[in-house]
């Protein structure tokens, strides 16, 4: 996936350079944070003069210079990982199992592993800079009776510090996947990069400090219980001894060393801060608006023009930036709007406008179709025997289409009711053959080994004996049960619900014991509330821009469009928007769809995608009103169906 993406001209010419610039800036900021760290690490309240002079002499030391070189390498690797793992469409796990699958995905494991190693490197640098007792792994044992000085002992502080780095690196990676830290959202306002960075910096510092505090707490608990394992392992492999005269660190008294905890917290803050700054700069640089030319007189540049770029599917970032540019030009730039409305020189066709309009409309109608499909599945789910022959047929055909690669078990009749495979809604829409271009590259990630087939393998056999087995026979229970929701997103439609009781085979003999594991799995599979709604609208930023851009262009055409190119498309624009309005209205009548998610407090945990459906609803209404306010009574002469006219009348009377 990445190879084809990376060869794209836009990725080569723009994204790489932006990522490189962001890494360069974070490298430039590194000496500042390092100096700050060195300064604070020597902090002593009672000897301020000594503290300051020591820190300054430390800064000139060769250790610090060497550490800086190493840290530059670490920042570089973090930057490369940011570039490789970022996404503009978050993958929202609909169930806890899917989340687990995401965490255990091989790609994610690589991420975690590398970050743990880099964590070790950073804390090694930190330990070297602090010096003192964190200096070296093995030291000659302190004088003990009967032992000569030749014997080497393990310096547990050193081990404690390095392990902390690994722990923090891992928790950074883990929290990153749980909180969708790789999701890059676009700002609502266009600020310049420096001001954006300046505004966010205090929040990032605070966030890093707080996260580091939590990490230290978790790490201390971890070390308290499991600290003896790495210690013993290191001792045996390196053939060093444990110093029995010193306190062990996996005891309460050992861990209550205030200075140790302070150093640990400071190093953790330093680690997280450098990484978070890299991430922040990456986000700021990558989401900066890019201005595409609307048309070009040179034929070799045509592929880089806005109408062409909009219709491309592959690097999603390109599509998003193009839509953002469309939104901005429709609002701010008269001259570029004129180019959009212009006619081609020989022939006199409005190619630019046609291409832009077609792309926006196809995006919007894709979304309405996706919503309608979702509603159909949800609606059919509540009934006892909803399977019409038609949908049966459709689902089986699509099933072969999609699940062809997966295991046979998907098609066995056993995984009937309880088997909502926790794939996301996207998977479903994919399976229905409505593969939307926006989501395409992301579905593979969600299909982690845990998320679909392997789970089926676990549950498939034991399911009939689970408590659900009996209860689902009653349609009432089914309607009440949590599955009403959850199953909707289920799996490839062929295997998904709604099963008539007759399709359930007699219990397999192997499934006599009601496995605790299956019960647990069953619980985990209950959908996280409103997650399916979030997943459905995960890429809606594109739709919002399409709506805004289109409606702004239409409104501007009232005065600026000299050839009337927009008028020809007005009926289809209006009907597409009204269809979408209908679908969105219906969606918000579903339970959980209109419940608000918890607002995250920090800037770095971007939860914009959780509220995109509300933003889309608001943008849709604004777009409709923008058109009706501009055209007013003239809209009566636009051809449309009676139903749409009625709906439009509502808008014209300000009753929506």
């Amino acid at each position, binding site marked *: 996936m990445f190879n084809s993406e990376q060869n794209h001209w836009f990725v080569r010419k723009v994204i790489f350079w932006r990522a490189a610039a962001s890494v360069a800036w974070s490298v430039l900021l590194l000496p500042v944070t390092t100096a700050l760290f060195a300064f604070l690490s020597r902090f002593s309240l009672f000897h301020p003069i000594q503290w300051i002079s020591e820190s300054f002499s430390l800064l000139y030391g060769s250790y610090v210079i060497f550490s800086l070189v190493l840290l530059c390498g670490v920042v570089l690797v973090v930057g490369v990982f940011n570039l490789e793992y970022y996404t503009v469409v978050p993958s929202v796990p609909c169930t806890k199992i899917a989340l687990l699958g995401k965490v255990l995905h091989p790609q994610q494991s690589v991420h975690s592993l590398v970050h743990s190693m880099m964590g070790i490197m950073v804390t090694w640098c930190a330990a070297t800079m602090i010096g003192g007792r964190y200096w070296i792994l093995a030291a000659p044992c302190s004088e003990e009776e009967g032992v000569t000085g030749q014997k080497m002992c393990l310096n547990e502080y050193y081990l404690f510090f390095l392990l902390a780095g690994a722990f923090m690196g891992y928790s950074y990676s883990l929290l990153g996947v749980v909180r969708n830290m790789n999701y890059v959202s676009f*700002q*609502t*306002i*266009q*600020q*310049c990069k420096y*001001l954006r960075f300046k*505004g966010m910096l205090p929040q990032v510092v605070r966030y890093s400090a707080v996260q580091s505090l939590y990490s230290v707490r978790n790490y201390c608990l971890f070390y308290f219980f499991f600290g003896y394992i790495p210690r013993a392992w290191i001792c045996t492999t390196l053939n060093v001894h444990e110093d029995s005269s010193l306190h062990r660190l996996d005891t309460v008294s050992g861990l209550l060393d205030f200075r140790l905890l302070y150093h640990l917290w400071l190093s953790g803050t330093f680690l997280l801060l450098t990484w978070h700054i890299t991430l922040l700069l990456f986000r700021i640089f990558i989401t900066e608006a890019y201005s595409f030319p609307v048309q070009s007189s040179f034929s070799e540049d045509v592929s880089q023009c806005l109408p062409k770029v909009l219709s491309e599917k592959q690097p999603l970032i390109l599509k998003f930036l193009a839509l953002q540019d469309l939104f901005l030009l429709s*609002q*701010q730039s008269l001259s570029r709007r004129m180019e959009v409305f212009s006619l081609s020189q020989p022939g006199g066709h409005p190619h630019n406008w046609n291409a832009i309009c077609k792309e926006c409309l196809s995006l919007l109608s894709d979304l309405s179709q996706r919503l309608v499909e979702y509603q159909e599945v949800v609606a059919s789910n509540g009934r006892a025997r909803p399977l019409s022959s038609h949908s049966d047929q459709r689902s089986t055909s699509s099933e072969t289409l999609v699940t062809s690669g997966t295991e046979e078990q998907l098609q066995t009749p056993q995984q009937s009711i309880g088997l909502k495979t926790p794939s996301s809604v996207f998977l479903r829409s994919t399976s229905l053959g409505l593969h939307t271009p926006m989501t395409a590259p992301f579905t593979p990630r969600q299909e982690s080994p845990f998320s679909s087939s392997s789970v089926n393998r676990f549950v498939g056999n034991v399911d009939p004996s689970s408590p659900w087995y009996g209860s689902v026979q009653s349609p009432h229970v089914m309607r009440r049960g949590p599955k009403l929701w959850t199953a909707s997103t289920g799996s490839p439609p062929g295997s998904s619900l709604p099963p008539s009781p007759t399709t359930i085979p007699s219990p397999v003999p192997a499934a006599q014991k009601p496995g605790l594991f299956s019960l647990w799995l069953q619980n985990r599979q209950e959908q996280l509330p409103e997650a399916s709604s979030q997943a459905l609208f995960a890429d809606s930023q594109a739709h919002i821009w399409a709506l*805004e851009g289109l409606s*702004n262009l239409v409104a501007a055409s009232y*005065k600026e469009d000299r050839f009337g190119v927009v008028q020809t498309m007005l009926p289809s624009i209006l009907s597409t928007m009204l269809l979408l309005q209908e679908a969105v209205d219906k969606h918000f009548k579903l339970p959980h769809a209109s419940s*608000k998610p918890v*607002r995250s407090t920090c800037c770095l945990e971007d939860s*914009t995608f959780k*509220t*995109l459906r*509300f*933003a889309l*609803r*608001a*943008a849709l*209404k*604004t777009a409709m*009103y*923008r058109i009706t*306010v501009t055209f*007013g009574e003239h809209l009566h002469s636009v051809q449309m169906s009676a139903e749409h006219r009625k709906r439009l009348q509502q808008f014209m*009377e*300000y*009753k*929506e």
Partner: protein
Amino acid sequence: MNSLSLFPPPGPDGNITLFESNNELVCGTSLGSRQKQGWEPPSLLFPRESLKPHSRPESSSKAAFLDHRDTLWMRSARAWRDSGLSGLLDEIANCTEEEVPRWLTVGCSWTLALLRWVSSFHGSLFPHLTLSSEDMVAEFSQVLDWSDCAVRAFAWHPHTDKFAVSLLDDSIRIYNSKSATAPTLKHRLQRNVAALQWKPLCASALAVACHNCLLVWHVDPTSLSTRPSSGCAQVLSHPGHCPVTSIAWSPNGSLLLSASPVDTAMMVWDVAGESCVPLQRVGGGGVTFLSWSPDGSRVLASTPSALFRVWETRTWTCERWPCLKGRCQTGCWSPDGTRLLFSVQGEMVIYALTFTDAPGSSKAAAIVADLSETSFSTSQGQVRVGGQVQTMAWDPRGERLAVLLKGTEPEPVISQHILLPVVRSHSTTSIGFVKGESGAEPRLLQFHPHFPNGALLTVCWSNGRISHVPFFFVSAGGSVLNPGGSPPWPLPQSRAVENGERLLYTEMSS
């Protein structure tokens, strides 16, 4: 330059200004003496006596209800929650000997004293920070004498004949031309409403600037309910951003700005996502008043100090405009967003600023109107008019400017009725003073956003009356649908040259 001496004298006592036609204000004794055309906005009366202000003195009721024999931990936790660090310190400092060791109480009282000293120092830098939040709203509100006014805020819907009124009892009522029901909005957090604004390009959303949050109501226009539940309101709050004294929707309805005099950042809200981007600029000590230009390209943000900023909305950079005398009290934009009129506290003049995209445009504010005291001889004797500007409104066609003057208090003649000069901006001729019922002072004014036959001015009076004064005229610049054509306001640059002096200096920064 225009001055009050060019105005025709105010009408006789006991008469009310009814409407304008042929460039003259027509007075009469009752509102009914004009024939109605189409829908007339209702002239409402909210008597001061019928509205009970919220009496929720939280500090005094605490003593009456709470059990004082709580443990120290409970009390400390509550003090921390209610009033933060200073409350906690106060609680501990006032403890008895047997509960807390002596050194702790002494330490707490010392810390508290130090804290108060530091905050008083901060307060001497920015005196408005020492005000209570209610006084602060009264100080910076656009409404004259906000704390005593029956009508605290008023907002016309930008597209349809509908308006919202916020009253002294913290409720909001919505009057609609198309339905007889007038919904009343009440919310637990809706206190000390300082401003209201309807979202443009939307039928239902109403933003309310409250005591410690922003509320965005979604009032379904087709609903017949008279008391929409508080579930219809979105609460937007940000720590340290209260009280909110001014809000402004972007003209394309996508963003909401909010300002608080204690917060140096102004917030740009994405209302649907309930997220905000703070735009921080140190200097000024807060933001008091916001006004978004009708074309959406610029925002005026005034601060409590002698400084205001003009933001441009493309990349959100700002120009600093230090004023000479006092803070910028109010401002309004011409319909095409190129001209800004503003007034400065302590000066009885109106300044104008012109913005053009071309480089090298004039960066100086010029005085366009002088509102210093002038006496008129009327049948009742001498009437003196003049004072500082409290608020201004420019009608959507750009042809009428209404200015609300704040009289100087000790002179009884002026404080009897504060008068409204209506400046006709086309050639800056003067039209006259709008008068209300005898004894009523104007408190707040706003133009109807799309009155078909000219302009319609809505005035809220001190006796609780909301009246509407139509100005009938034919617009020179075209219809309302084309707000692009700006009225030919005499260019301030040339005026500045004419007048020669009293330029406001400026400095550019981003």
